[in-house]
């Protein structure tokens, strides 16, 4: 497996996280489309910024073999990114339209 595939799996976990978030917090859901889009951007934002601490796709494959612990951490952070972003975007949307 190469880091290209890890980056993609990571985004899929972000999408799952955001849709679960929308399902749990029904007042904050953005709908299937909105949740999915938020999940993608949340995942990318979290992994691109926090991944610098050593669990980005490149670090996971640094030795040539898959570092399983870092991989799980990457997926967890990506999932969390998607989960949180739905709530943040909902708040942003409410603020922007509150005139």
């Amino acid at each position, binding site marked *: *497996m*190469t*880091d*290209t*595939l890890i*980056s*993609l*799996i990571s*985004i*899929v976990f972000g*999408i799952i996280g955001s849709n679960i978030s929308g399902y749990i917090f029904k007042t904050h859901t953005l709908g*299937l*489309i909105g949740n*999915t*889009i938020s999940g*993608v*951007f949340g995942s*990318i934002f979290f992994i691109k910024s926090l991944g610098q601490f050593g669990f980005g*796709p*490149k670090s996971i494959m640094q030795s*040539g073999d898959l570092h399983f612990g870092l991989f799980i951490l990457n997926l967890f952070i990506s999932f969390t990114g998607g989960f949180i972003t739905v709530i943040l975007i909902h708040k*942003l*949307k409410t603020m*922007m*339209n509150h*005139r």
Partner: protein
Amino acid sequence: MEDMIFYDRLQFAFTITFHYIFPQLTMGLSLIIVYFKGKYLINKTEKYNDIAKFLMKIFAVNFTMGVITGIPMEFQFGTNWAKFSELTGSIIGQTLAMEGMFSFFLESSFLALFIFGEKLMGQKLHFLTGFLVFLGSWGSGWFILATNAWMQHPVGYEILDNGKFVLDNFSSLFSNPWLLPAFLHNQFASVTTSSFVISSIGAFYILRDKNLDYGKLLLKTGVVFGLVSSILLAFPTGDWNAKNVAKYQPASFAAMEGIFETEEAGAEIVLIGQPNMVEKKLDNKIAVPNILSFLTYQKWDKQIPGMDKFKKEELPDNIPALYYSYHIMVGLGTIFIGVMGMSVFFLWRRKLFNLKPLLWTIMFLVPFPYIANITGWYVAELGRQPYLVYGLLKTSEGVSPTVSSGNTLFTLLGFVAIYLLLGLLFLILVGKTIHQGPKPQIH
């Protein structure tokens, strides 16, 4: 080594093909959204605004899928094409970074404002955000095409003793004679795809007797945009590109046109025929004499070098794929002009909305602009072979020496599985948006 190059190329071809399904729609759609929003600003008819917001939802889903599938592209430069990145990074890195910093950020920031900020900003600023999304998406196309143009026709570079390419003239990246025609051709192709997409949504609504007002407006706008863009695709942009290939990549030109042997005077244009690589000829050929010479050089008897004039190592390595891609692209482009021309004619005669066979045709033609766009890119990429940077760096010299073919194959299989999943998700999301249709503004 051969295996490694094959799988690296296969993976890149697969991922870029899937990726390009999305940006080709966003680039064209952004122009159409600006048109609808502008119309609303001018005549204050609500349905134009409703359609602009409806199309922006489709845009957002496409844009997101483009982002997801674009991430692996970035990684592949490092994993599969490390040598290429190392040697040319100081040149292609400039345009790729500009794409991210200027265009992608512009597009994504203002996309969010367009979707959420209408009430906050008012209509004029809302139009401006839509325009900036358009600018960002076309800017992305410009910078990516500038990268590709440099690979097709390298300019303004210097090669150091260690084999690395460095830029000695920054502005030449953007004044590259390959860039403008390629960019315009690519953008009009995107507008054609978007025109077919909105026309087919319009045709779908009319056939289902649903959202009729919106359906008619989408169809009407789609066919007019479609006719103009498909004509501009053929002439002048397609013609301009072909002349560039003839001038800068004559071996590729001979291969894509299927010219195995140089004719004494005046080259024929091949309409149909199958390349026979054993006997070095076209089987079952239907061709029109001298037309290719006239179209390329405006001289009926101008000689055009065939593949027999080039060494084997100068010719593209997959001539049948290049030849078929080119002929599929050109053939489909001709069909688009015909269908859109007919649609505009019946629109003018006020019969279009009742012509069911034509509405069904428009609806089912949707995949074909995508196929034409992708085969067009195959022509550019297969035509550049066996080089990564034309005439200077061979494809075999650009791969990563340490990534095994087994590793790439496993990753490729993973991509296939995940892209199937993402493709399904995309269809569900877009299908849901179309099913809901444009929503009238509630005051």
